[in-house]
Each structure stands twice: as C-alpha cells, then as structure tokens.
C-alpha cells in the first residue's frame, strides 16, 4: 500500500515537471512561461528528494525557486506591456532540425534502456554534513575555483548591465 502511494507521488512529480516544462516552451505569453517554470523547478526539487539528495532539493528550492525565479517573475511584472507581448517563435528549418534532434533523442533513449545502472544499496541518510566536509577537504580546489567563476560572472554582469558608458566613471 505504502509502495503504491510512493509510486503515485513519484509519478505526480514527474508529470508536474515534464508537463509544466512543456508549458514553459510552448506558451505564447511570457508570464505563463515564467509561472510554469516555477512548477518545473519545484517538480525537480521533488525528484531530488526521491533520490535522497536532501541538500540538493533544499538548495534547489532556495536558490532556483526562491531566488532566480522570483527575480524572473518580478522582471516580467515590472516590464511594461509584457503581457501583451508575443514571443516570436518562427523557427527556421523546423523540420530539418527534427532530424538531429530525433537522432540524439534516440541515442539517449537507447543508452537509458540498455545501460545497467549502478544502484546504491544504502538507506537514505542526511547528506548535508558530509557535503560540507567534502567541500572544505577533498573538493577544496573546485570549491574555490567556483567562487572565482562567480566573481567573474558578478563583475561581468555589472559591466554589461550599466546603462550608459558615461555612467561608468565612478
């Protein structure tokens, strides 16, 4: 009984993720896309919980849902006439593009079903403490490089988003 319930919740999250992702891509109005993205990200966080990745699920909620998505939605709200704006979606060579996409999808699906997945036979336990330790011992260098990467992104974003060249004089 409990297994069926877990299965049901899992598939609920799958449908939530994929279904709202389809809305994100195909919606004609940007505001619908933004809100649909909210449900996609929550769905992905739910899938992380099923993978026993509690820290990842929490950061997904905090950073993507709480931070980035809120920014996007506010950006949409505060932009004038955004509701009436239609997104140009006239794709060129739509049918030609289907060829490589279908080929790539076929390869991925083949891999998905043919490979034997290494399943971990362990009970779910909190990962946060171990992750924290690893980041400051084994993965110290990647951790520091990532912070330099973010610094570059930060400075670059400021450089690009300043309104006019004259305003650059500090």
């Amino acid at each position, binding site marked *: 009984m409990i297994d069926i319930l877990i299965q049901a919740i899992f598939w609920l999250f799958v449908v939530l993720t994929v279904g709202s992702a389809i809305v994100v891509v195909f919606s004609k109005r940007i505001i619908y896309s933004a809100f649909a993205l909210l449900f996609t990200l929550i769905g992905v966080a739910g899938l992380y919980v099923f993978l026993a990745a509690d820290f990842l699920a929490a950061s997904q909620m905090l950073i993507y849902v709480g931070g980035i998505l809120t920014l996007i939605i506010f950006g949409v709200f505060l932009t004038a006439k955004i509701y009436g704006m239609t997104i140009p979606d006239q794709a060129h060579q739509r049918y030609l593009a289907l060829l490589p996409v279908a080929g790539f999808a076929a*390869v*991925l699906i083949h*891999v998905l079903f*043919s*490979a*034997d*997945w*290494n399943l971990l036979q362990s009970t779910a336990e909190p990962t946060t403490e171990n992750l924290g*330790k690893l980041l400051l*011992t*084994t*993965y*110290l*260098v*990647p951790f*520091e*490089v*990532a912070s*330099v*990467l973010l*610094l*570059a*992104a930060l*400075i*670059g974003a*400021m*450089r*690009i988003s300043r309104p006019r*060249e004259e305003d*650059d*004089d*500090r």
Partner: protein
Amino acid sequence: MNITYNLPAIGTQLVLGAGVILVLLADLLTGKKNRDVAYQTTLTVLVLAGIICVMKWGSAGAGFGGQVFGDGFASFFNLAFLAIAFLVVFNSPNYLKRNEIDHGEYYMLILIAVLGMTFMSSAGDLLIFFLGLETMSISLYVLAGFHKSRARSNESSLKYLLLGAFFTGFLLYGIALIYGQVGSTNLADITSYLAGSANPLGGYMGVGLALLLVGLLFKMAVVPFHFWSPDVYDGAPTPVTAFMSAAPKAAAFAAALRIFYDPAISLGLPWDKTLWIAAALTITLGNFAALAQSSIKRMLAYSSITHAGYLMIGLAAGNELGASGMLYYLFTYGFMNVGAFTIAWLVNRRGEGNYLLSDFAQLGSRNPVMALLMSIFMLSLTGIPPLAGFFGKLYVFSAGVKAGLIWLVVIAVLNSVVSVFYYLRVMVIMYMREEEGLKDLEKAPTVAITAILCGLVILLLGLFPGPLLDLARESVLSLL
C-alpha cells in the same frame, strides 16, 4: 580524511587568483579616469605568475589528491597562456583609450580567463576541468561584448554566450554519464576503468565521452561546431579577438590532450574516424571561406579555424610526435596571431567593424618595419621555412604520416598550398598596391614593441626549433 594538498602544484594559479583581487582593489582605489595602476598591476601579476611557473617547472607533481597537476605539461601551457595574455594586455591601453572603453574590469576579466585556462591545462579531474572551462568562458563572453555601445560587439557576446551555454550542456551531460559509469570524475580512475573493462565503451561511457568531445570541439571551433567563431571574432574588440583566437584554443587542446591522449590504451575508439573527417572538413572549409574575405579580421578568424584543423591531425594521430608537435604549434601560433591582430588594428583607419585588407596598402613604404613584421606573421601562418609556423606544421603532419593518416595529411598539404593565396595577398597589398589618402601610422610604442617581440619569437623559434620541441616532448612525457 587524509589528503596531501601540495600547494606548489597550483602555484601559478594562486598568484593569478591573488592578482585578480589585487587588480580589483587597485582599480577601485585609483580608478576614476586613470587605469594605469590596474594596467601595471596586471602586467606585474602575469610576470610573477610566469616566474613561479618557470621556477616550479614540472617539479610540483600532483596536488589535492590528484585533482590538479603541476607537471611539465601544465607548466608548458601555463607559460603559453601567460605570455599571450601579457602581450595582449601590454598593448591594450592604446586600443581601449582609442575606443573609449578603458575600464578596469577588462584587466581583471583577462586575468580570470587566464586563471580558468591554467586550471584546464592542469586538471586531473573532470570537475576541475569543467570549472576552469566555465571560468574562462564567462570572462570571454563579457570581454567579447566589452565594447557595449557597438551592436557588433553585443552580437558577438550574445552569440558566444548562447551557443557556449548550449554546448556546455552537452559537455556537462557527457561528464555526468561518465561519472555514472565510472563512479568518479578523476581522470586516473577513468583511465584505469577504460584499461580494465572488457567493453570500455559499453553502457553510457561511449556516449559520455562523445558528448565531452563535442563540448571540446566547440571551444576549438572545429567543423561542424565552428559557425560561431567568425562572427564572435569579428565583433569582439580586436585585442580580445587576438587573445581569444590564441589562448582559449590552446586551453581546449590542452584539456583534450589531458583527457584523450593515452597511447598506452588502444581502444579502437570510433572517433578515430570522426576526428579524421572533422579535421579534413575543418581544414578545407576554413581555408576556402578565408579566401573570400575582404576583412582582415574575418580572414584571420577563418584561418584560425583552418589551424584548428591542422592541430586536429596531431590529436587524431594520437602518438607522442603528434602531441609534442601540437604543443610546439600552439605555443608559436599564439605569437603569430597576437602579432597579426595587433598590427591589423594599428593599421585600421575606419574604426571598429571596418577592417579592410585595403588598409594595408603601401604599408611597405609608410612603415617598413610593421610591413616586414606583418610579412613574417603571414609567412609563418602559411608555413614557410624557416619560420616557426613551418615547424609546427611539419611536426604535426609527420605525426599524421607516422600514424598512417596519409590521405588526411595530403588534404592538409594541398590546403596549405591554397592558403598561400590569401596570406600572400596581404603582402601583395602592402608592397604593391597604390591607394589614395593614406596617412602615416599613429605612434604607438607598446604596439610596436608587441609586434617586434612576436616577430622575434617566431623567427628565433623557427631558426632554432630544437629546444622548444625538446621541451614539448618532455612535457608530453610528463602527461603519462
């Protein structure tokens, strides 16, 4: 938790990282209208990093549990990145002031890009490699759009960002699949998995490695993943173009050698054929597109696609001569490109976006020294002996012959003959064409010094290729 950190293994990176913060603070305190402090600090940091790199040459070994290597291979490439960055930064203020984009972020972003590249060349772990690649790319996206009042520069940045992000997706997917199969992102673990497995490319390993390769080929601008490079190179500020066409390409090849070069394991990889086809297409397509260009910047952009194709022969050959030839080639190619781009923007008289080959008219009489240097760069890019470009091609081509890629080398040699046409056309214009209303060149000492240094390096490394090739060979041996 027992892990040896071995800080000397990332000595160069530590200096660069500290330098980034230093430049940021120096520019914050002294900025305003004056960028001299940021400029001088950047040059000092690059020189210091170079000194550390040479002092610790190949002796630092593995650090952080095999995640980074301070071996000869890393030192070789790091020195190349630092030298290219130094030359580009050295003559940048002139360009930046002329185009009124003289901002401190420029120097910082170049330093961060170099830092990313040094992590790519010394990566012993796919995680470090990926972070290095992204650190480099993010800085380059911004640098390409640094001239933000120009639409072309914005276009360049946006195209690079969108396509770069797209291909990063492939690359990361590949790394994830490899991790899924091996259970580790460490290159040593991956190599021993490949060596020990009965069916090394079974499961999702084959697809994972292929996707990883696709991501790298994009950064190298190899056909069919080249379409971004002419527009990005053309729109970016010219010193940035010079930097982009030399250093990131070398970094991508360095990472490819780190990940894929292992003659000890003969896997019968299906991409022996793939690399063959990609190399042949890259060389031919780049070459014939370069023929049709009237802008020197676009011509050099297509020529850099062709050169990536020549370098692919070394990768496809997969032997020691090919790898060491690639190191020699990449090192010298950086100097040729920086020199050529530097003279191109000095000669250009219609402003950004209008780099015409006809701007070079009468340069032979207007400024004989610059004309001579440009001739050296063009001849070296063609591969005329005794310049460095000749030996780079020679080593890579003979590695191809040794590995039995005869037809690929024949295609490459035939294309080299075709390339004589567009490289020599620049010289014909400089010495033989008459044009009205040409002024003398602006006095720009830093630019002249850069060009002279590049010319000297190419001439010396061409006349005495032995020492650098020996160094390249030693560096490749340290890879195993």
